[in-house]
């Protein structure tokens, strides 16, 4: 943390940050945040659907129930990605 502060102080002493570099850094960080926010739900959805298919294979008569809960599970997992997306649009465009 001290090293980071020293780096910022040195940069400001040298004439401040380049606005273009600042924009690039903001865009990179926003993209990184959205990408990372989408990875977790992606893994979650794959796991969820895999287990649901396994459950349907074991008990085909319960397939309707499993598919209903699977759909809701997917939507809940996707909410995490949507939160990441909203943070992204607020950081990048607002």
């Amino acid at each position, binding site marked *: 943390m001290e090293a980071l502060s020293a780096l910022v102080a040195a940069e400001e002493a040298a004439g401040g940050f380049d606005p273009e570099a600042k924009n690039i850094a903001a865009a990179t960080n926003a993209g990184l945040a959205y990408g990372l926010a989408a990875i977790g739900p992606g893994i979650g959805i*794959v796991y969820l659907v895999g287990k649901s298919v396994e459950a349907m294979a074991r008990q085909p008569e319960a397939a309707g129930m499993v598919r209903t809960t699977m759909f809701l599970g997917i939507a809940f997992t996707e909410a995490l990605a949507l939160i990441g997306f909203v943070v992204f649009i607020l950081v990048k465009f607002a």
Partner: protein
Amino acid sequence: MSTTAGDAFTTRFDGPAPEVAVSNDIIKRGLIVAPVLIAIAAVIWGGDGAWSSTYAIAIVLLNFALAAALIAGAARISVGLMMGATMFGYLIRLALIFLAVWLVKDAGWISLPALGSTIIVTHLGLLFWEMKYVALSLSQPGLKSDAPQLSREQTI
């Protein structure tokens, strides 16, 4: 619901798709609460907020409808395809939401905080609302959540 057994590539689910029923329920409820959400956004962010909120609600409801249609359509073909359609459907839907927001980000009527907060509130709110009914029908399969409730006097 009937299944046609085989391996993962040929097993398929015929009959009515529960995802479509759930999605239709969510859309119905979304249309009911939409005026309230739009009014709240209009109070907080003004006219731009109302338009942005309307756009966000449309995105969320279309997202639910598309997800259900993709899963239901793929399940009629094969379970393996359903898995693929769910995973790639997730990516495609995220890309479509991004595209939908990117296309209007510079429009005069857009308010990004209103758009973002409405997306999250609508998505989660409708899911929790629907979950209440799904949990009820799973625990009591014969119970119809939409049936009129009997009063205490009527049950005695």
